[in-house]
Each structure stands twice: as structure tokens, then as C-alpha cells.
């Protein structure tokens, strides 16, 4: 019994010493020695917005689609000098205003037999003259604000001087590339 008490009395100082050392360690480990003071800055949060674009063929926009395909018949059986138009609609489903820039895939951009032009507005009521498209993106129309849709009219023209041996063949298999670039006034 006495031996157990003696053992306890020996353990107590050891535990106490360990606790003090820990407290001292916290004090020494503080990051601000010497004097210091602080004044708060009014709390705020920076929350970034979104820039998301959708595309659909026709006058009605899509809430989610980022690619679309024209009806295969839309530009089928074209004659030399003929021009056909199709409406497509771009949606801004984010919070950030953007400009639409259009370009063609590299192969189509080099075609001598076909030309492409894109104008703001639907084909039923174009808002401006079409912009001739190439490999370099070009802005089409004005800025498109968040949660809005805007239609564009694509006009495809088969060159009047297209060679006769092009008849009945696929003259171009094109991809219209639309970029949505953040717009800041």
C-alpha cells in the first residue's frame, strides 16, 4: 500500500512538469511576438459568376446543348450560285455577358467553291448584313447578356463558277465554330 502511494507521489510531479512544458511551448510558438493589434475589415465574399453558352438550330434556344447539327437536307442539292440560309440560336445561360465570334474549320475556310456568312437576327428578319466567315473568329452582332438568347442567320452560297465535275458530290463538310468571349464595355 505504501509502495503504491510512494509511486503515485513520484508520478505526480512528472505529470505536472509535462503539462507546464506544453503550455510554455504554446506561448513560445505564437506567430506574433512583440506587440500587435488588429482592426477588422468588413466581411465580404467574392463569388465568381459563370460564362456558359448553348447553341441550337432554329429560332428556339437550348438550355444545355453545346453542339448542334443542321438538317442534312438543309444544304443538299445546291446549284451553282444558289444561297440557302438557316437560323441558329445561341443562348447565354450564365451570368456573364459575352460576344459571339464565329469561324469555320480550317478545311472549309480554304474552300473556293463555297462561302459562308453569318448575320445577327433570324433569317426571317436579319438585323444586319452577314459577315463573311473564315478561319479567324469574327464578332457577330452585339453583346449577349446573361440568361438571354439570340438568333443568327447562316447563309451558305455555292460559287457560280463551281466546276461541273463537282455536281453530285459533297463540296464541303463544314463546321461552324462559335466562341463566346466575355464582354466588358
Amino acid at each position: 500500500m505504501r509502495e503504491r502511494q510512494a509511486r503515485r507521489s513520484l508520478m505526480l510531479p512528472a505529470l505536472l512538469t509535462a503539462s507546464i512544458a506544453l503550455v510554455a511551448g504554446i506561448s513560445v510558438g505564437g506567430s506574433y511576438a512583440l506587440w500587435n493589434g488588429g482592426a477588422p475589415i468588413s466581411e465580404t465574399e467574392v463569388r465568381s459568376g459563370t460564362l456558359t453558352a448553348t447553341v441550337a438550330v432554329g429560332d428556339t434556344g437550348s438550355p444545355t446543348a453545346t453542339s448542334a447539327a443542321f438538317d442534312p437536307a438543309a444544304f443538299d442539292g445546291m446549284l451553282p450560285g444558289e444561297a440557302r440560309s438557316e437560323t441558329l440560336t445561341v443562348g447565354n445561360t450564365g451570368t456573364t455577358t459575352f460576344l459571339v465570334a464565329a469561324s469555320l474549320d480550317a478545311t472549309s475556310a480554304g474552300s473556293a467553291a463555297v462561302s459562308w456568312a453569318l448575320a445577327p437576327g433570324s433569317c426571317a428578319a436579319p438585323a444586319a448584313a452577314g459577315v463573311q466567315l473564315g478561319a479567324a473568329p469574327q464578332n457577330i452582332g452585339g453583346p449577349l447578356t446573361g440568361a438571354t438568347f439570340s438568333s443568327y442567320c447562316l447563309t451558305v452560297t455555292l460559287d457560280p463558277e463551281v466546276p461541273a465535275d463537282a455536281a453530285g458530290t459533297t463540296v464541303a463538310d463544314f463546321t461552324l465554330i462559335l466562341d463566346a468571349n466575355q464582354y466588358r464595355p
Partner: protein
Amino acid sequence: MNRLTKGLIAGGAGLALLIGSAGTLALWNDAATLDAGAVDSGVLTVNATGGTWDNTITAWSPGDTATYTADVSIVAQGDNLHSQLSIDPSSITGDPELLAALQITMSVGTTSGGTLTPVAGQSNTFDVVSATPTTTAPITAPVTVTVTFPADSVTGTVAQAQSVQLSGLQFLLQQTP
């Protein structure tokens, strides 16, 4: 009385004898008073009042900026006191991409009662020098914190729909060696 109690009494008697022999009042002695005056410590405090953000942006996009301006009052009393005013952008937390894109800077307007001088090589840090370091006359200045989401900081869809909390940000006044 058991053996332990006896042992304690014997120990106490021994201690009393030691005090008697170690006393300082034996034989002649004298004393003189040294009036060294008082030791008065200085003061180092910072307060910010009237702080406001210039605009509230619900959804930030690249190119956006907001500024927070407050009237800062510093008391830096101490003959040999050196201190610096700063903000610590590392105290802010949030989504990594937006956090990496944001820039936070501090600038100081017209100062009275002393100077707040930018420290070379240390962004957002200013040396504090009081015009009257032995008094508690404050150094005052409008201080602006600018939060910028630089237009060229991200491309594509990086850092969209993210958030960063500025709740940990504060004006920090720190004594320096």
C-alpha cells in the same frame, strides 16, 4: 505519533536553524534609497472606422474590382517603438482557382500625425512612424484595400462559380524589432 510525523517535525526544526544563521541583520548595516522614477510602457493600437465597400458584386467575372476604404487610426507611443501596418492576404480562404486569381492590395491616403511608408520588397506593408512618439497622439489615414479579379488572370472557364471568403482579412499592426 507515527514515524512519518516525527520525521516532519525534525525537518522543520532543521529549517528554523538555517534561517537563524542566514539572516541579513547581523551587526551594523545601512541602506540608501535610489529614486529611479517610474517605468511607463507605451501603446500600440489600431482602429478602423467607417469602412465600406464601394460596390456589391453578386457574381464576379474577370476584370471586376471592389475597394474597401476605412479611416485607420494608429497609436504608436514608444521612444524606441518600431511597427508596421499590413494586411495578410494569406488569411483569406476559398476555392483554389479563384483564390489564386484574386489580387488584394492596400494603399494609404493622406496621413496626419506621422507617416505610413511602403516597405520595399514587402507588398501591403507600411512602416509606421509617429510624429510624436512619446505621446498617444494618433496617426490617421484613409486606407484602401482593393480586391481585383484581373481580366488576364484566367482563361476558358477557369474559376467560375467559385467563392472566396474575406472574413479573415484585417488591418494588422505589428511591432518590429
